[in-house]
Structure formats: structure tokens, C-alpha cells
């Protein structure tokens, strides 16, 4: 066990939580607040990632700049999907939503495959990508730092929207009691539309970060979706602020095990999901 690597492990772990929080926050809105189980959430990342790639290839846009374009486009896609299909299964059992969104996911994934092909795509020429600030013997990567900051802003922003704005109050009302919300004059469908569009938008931003970090393929969404679901559930449905701490716990644990244990990186997923399972089970019995 090389203790000299511990400080770097801690720093990397904390910063890595940024990406986890980023991919979870959109899903937290969809499932946690509105109650739509969206199996196609990963495909929103994927579209965001490929849009960022295409904007780079066609116009030379830096990914951070493409966020300005990706965000509204994903919002429109989410809203369009809601209006055309998802709103019809809101009253149906959750399982129906799963099948619908699963079907949507297949469509989106294979459309992307037809458009861009199956090869992974890299955004070359991102000058800040390989930069690490050397702070007291530890390297603080610009990209993870950036993801961390963006994720905290988005999570905080979403929390404020939900807590302080009329739109947010409307979303929470609709999630709590759909009929009641309609009775007090809220345009329920419009609220859901905006919420779902917002969820897609947040996922799209996450997708841009993924395109910076990795080389996405049309199937890149799944691994992140599973982990996003897990983080949302770990934080507790409806607990938006909890996303950051939940992400931090799993990211730190992963980083520590990956650094301190021989071949520890191969255990990353086991660590992540063991924490999820353990916490869920522990909490359930403690409540009893």
C-alpha cells in the first residue's frame, strides 16, 4: 500500500464526483421530482456528446461553447418527446414508462449509429484537457475541476429553481399531487413538459463533459445511466442537494480503492454498487 498516493487519490476522488453529480442531476429531476422513469436518459447524454463532437468537427467549437447550443437543442428534444409520447404514459404504471422509454432509447441509439457510425469519436484539440494544476504535490485536473464546478452550479441551481421559483413550486406540486395541482389552476401538462425538457437539457450538458473526457460511441449512455439511477436513489428521491454528497461518497470510495488496492481499478464498479446496495439495505432495516 503506497500511502504517498493517498493525497492524490483523495483529490481525484472529490473531483470525480463532479461528473457523477452531473449525470445524475437530470435524472434526479425526471425521477426524483416528476416521477418519470426514463430509460432513455443515457441517450440524452449520448446526443449531447455527439452534438458537441459534430459542432467541433463542423465549426471548430470548443465543447464549453457548444454547451450553449447543446442545451436548448436537448431541451427541445426532451420537450418534443414528452409531448409526442411520454405524456400518454404518465398515468400508466411505471413499467409502461420503462417500455416506452426503452423503445425511445433504441430508436435514438440506432439513429445515432446510422448517422455517425459505430466508431468512437474524439474531440481533438481541446487545449485544457490534459492540464493539471500542481498544487502542493497533488495534481488538480482542469477538466475534473471544471466538471465539479459545473455540477455544483447545476445542482445548486436546480435546487434553487425547485425551492424558490414559481416554476419549481409548480413542479413539486405536480409531483406531489397531479389532480390537486390541476385543481388549483396549474397547467399540469406544461409543467411536465418543461420539467422533462429541463431533464434532457441537464443530461445534454453531462454529455458534453463525457465527450471531453472520453471518446463516445452510440452505446455510451448505458453505463452512465445505471450509475446515475444509483446515485439518485442513494441520495433519496426528491433530495436534490443530496446528489453532490452521494456522488462524493461513491467517487471517493472508488478512487481510494482504485489507488490503494492492487488492481483496484478493476473493482471500481463493485465498490460503487456495493455502497449503493449496502446503504439501501441498511437504511431500510434501520427505518423498521
Amino acid at each position, binding site marked *: 500500500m503506497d500511502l504517498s498516493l493517498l493525497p492524490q487519490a483523495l483529490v481525484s476522488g472529490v473531483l470525480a464526483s463532479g461528473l457523477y453529480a452531473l449525470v445524475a442531476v437530470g435524472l434526479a429531476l425526471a*425521477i426524483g421530482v416528476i416521477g418519470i*422513469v426514463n430509460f432513455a436518459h443515457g441517450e440524452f447524454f449520448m446526443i449531447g456528446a455527439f452534438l458537441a463532437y459534430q459542432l467541433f468537427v463542423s465549426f471548430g467549437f470548443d465543447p464549453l461553447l457548444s454547451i450553449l447550443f447543446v442545451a436548448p437543442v436537448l431541451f427541445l428534444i426532451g420537450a418534443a418527446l414528452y409531448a409526442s*409520447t411520454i405524456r*400518454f*404514459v404518465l398515468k*400508466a*404504471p*411505471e*413499467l*409502461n414508462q*420503462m*417500455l*416506452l422509454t*426503452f*423503445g*425511445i*432509447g*433504441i*430508436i435514438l*441509439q*440506432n*439513429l445515432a449509429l*446510422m448517422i455517425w457510425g459505430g466508431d468512437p469519436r474524439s474531440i481533438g484539440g481541446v487545449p485544457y484537457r490534459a492540464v493539471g494544476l500542481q498544487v502542493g504535490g497533488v495534481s488538480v485536473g482542469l477538466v475534473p475541476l471544471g466538471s465539479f464546478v459545473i455540477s455544483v452550479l447545476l445542482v445548486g441551481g436546480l435546487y434553487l429553481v425547485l425551492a424558490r421559483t414559481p416554476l419549481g413550486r409548480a413542479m413539486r406540486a405536480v409531483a406531489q399531487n397531479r389532480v390537486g395541482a390541476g385543481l388549483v389552476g396549474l397547467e399540469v401538462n406544461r409543467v411536465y413538459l418543461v420539467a422533462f425538457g429541463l431533464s434532457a437539457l441537464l443530461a445534454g450538458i453531462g454529455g458534453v463533459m463525457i465527450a471531453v473526457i472520453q471518446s463516445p460511441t452510440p452505446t455510451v449512455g*448505458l453505463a452512465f445511466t*445505471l450509475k446515475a*439511477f*444509483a446515485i439518485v*436513489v442513494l441520495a433519496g*428521491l426528491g433530495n436534490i442537494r443530496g446528489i453532490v454528497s452521494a456522488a462524493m461518497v461513491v467517487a471517493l470510495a472508488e478512487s481510494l480503492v482504485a489507488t490503494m488496492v492492487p*488492481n483496484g481499478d*478493476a*473493482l471500481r*464498479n*463493485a465498490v*460503487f*454498487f*456495493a455502497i*449503493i*446496495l449496502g446503504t*439501501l*439495505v441498511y437504511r*431500510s*432495516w434501520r*427505518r*423498521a
Partner: protein
Amino acid sequence: MRGRGLWLDLLAAALFVGLLAALPGILRGAYGQASVSYLALGIRAVGLAVLALSWDLVARTGQLSLAHAAFYGAGGYAAAVLLRLTDAPVWAGIPLAGVVAAALALALGGATLRLYGIYFAIGTLAFAEVLKTVVKSTPFAITGGSVGTNLPPLFRPQFVAGAMERWEVAYLRNQGYFLVYLGLLALAILVSVLVQRSRLRHAFTAVRTNEWVAGVMGVNPARTKLVAFVISSAIVGMLGAIEAHRFGSVNPDATFSVHTTVLALVTPIFGGLYTTVGPILAALVLSGVEETLKRTLSDGYLVAYGVVLVVSILFMPRGVMGLFRSLARRRRARAAVGAVAPGGRDA
């Protein structure tokens, strides 16, 4: 009334299984060597039916399990490890797979008794992912680690040159597997019918609807949920073992793939949840639709497949079975109206 329903159902099931058992011979007579290909497709469809029906069993108690692939994989590995480490007969792996999967389900089910809805779902998913990684890290000598291990096939018909054509060997092999898969499906159908036509059905539904109230009504929710979980997992564990033999190998990433779970849950939704016929019908229809699309549209057949899923759930919210039921209801209502209207037929 209940007794007669049970026997009718069992008779229908027996007829269905019997018909399917005769299918290989019928296909061979009608299509000759092409029957090999159709049988291969048939095997996949029946496998999907087992996957779907076993998942539906546990969904009836309201448990949305995302661990199905874990039990499938555990079954496959149980058979693989048994044959790798001992001289057991080839077929011994299958019942062992059922036992191992059942034991795992008992453990997981017991731990997650107080988890509900999406919390239960994610908990089971987490278990599946942990199991996959654990198997990957097990000692090479036992499971083959991340490379995996081979398994012998269940059927290896002998080719006798001059006395038969090569495709007949493939036919015999596919027929063998088809009948084994069918046998497992028959077991799943039997379990499902027995549940649907007994007090267990009401227990399952009560637990699914409201566990606390069910408890007040005298149902033991913990026992009900565990029974469903264990039986469902045993069945899919055996499927995992049979498929491992058919594919010749297991390896952690492929055998524990979450794709298996996803298929297991979307199929019954399409067909009609909490029924025996629904998951089976869905498996046959979806397999057929996918293969037809694949053969008619070269590129983008999966896009069309996704569209089929989306459209179907929008227009058939209770699945195919739900559609049949509402059609039947409408016909009965029309007949009743017709009977009382002047000039209508006598009811």
C-alpha cells in the same frame, strides 16, 4: 369453479407445449434444411419466453427485479464451475444452477425485504453489478477469472457420412435444445398456472397492491415475496446453464450482461403483465417482429423495432393481453346491448 379453471388451464398449457414439441418435426417436413434456421430462431423465442415469464412471476408481488441477469449468470457459472472442477455428468449442471440461483435469491430477497419500488430495483441492480465484478475477480483456477471458461454442449449428434446430410446433424442438435428449452418453459408455465389458480394469486396481488394491508389481511408478505423471488430465480438460473452449454462458454461481461435483464422486463410489459399467456405471447411476437424487420429492412431495422415498442405501449397500455381483454369486453357488451334492443338477437 377454481378447480375447473385450473384443469382447463393445465390442459391448455399441455396442448400448447405438445404443439410446440411437434414443431421441429413439422418444420422439417415443410422446409427441409431451412428448418434448422427456423428452429434456431424458435430456440431464441422460447428462451425469451422463459426469461419473460420468470421475470413476470416475481413482478406479480410488486418486486421490480433488475437482478435477473445475475441469476441467469449465476446459473451459467454454476454449471461451468461444476464441470470445470469435477467429473460430474454434463446434465448435472442444470439442477445445480437452479439451486445456486435460488440460494442467491433467498439471500438477496431477504436483505431487500424492506425495499420498495425503485429502491428495490436499484438495490437488485447493484447486487447484479457487484456479482459480475466479484466473479471477474475470482481465482482463475475456479472460474477462469475474466477470460471465463468453456462448457461442453448438451447435444453432439454424430454425423454418419453417407447415411445423412450435414444439416440433419444441425437439425438434431437444434431439436434437442429446442425441446430442453421447451421443457423449462413448460415448468415455468406450470408454476405460473398453479400460482394464478390458487390462493397464491391473491396473495401476490395483495402484496403488490399494498403490502401493509396484505399483512393485515393475513398474508405473510415476506414469505410471499421470497417464494416468488426464489422460484423465479431458480427458473432463470437453469436457463442460464442451458444457454451456457449452447454457447460453449461463459465469461463475466457477456454472461452477466444487463441486456438480459432489460429483455426480461420489457417483454412481459409488451405482452401483458401478471399473466401466463402475456409474457409467452410477447416473446414469440417480439422475436418474430424483430427477425422480420431484420430480413426486410437491412439498415436501421432496430429503429423500426424501437418504433414498434413505442407505438405498442401507447396503443396497448395493458399489453397484448389487455388488448384482447378489452376487445372481448366490448364484444360482450355489444352482444348484451343487441339482446335487449328491439329486433336484436336473443342473448
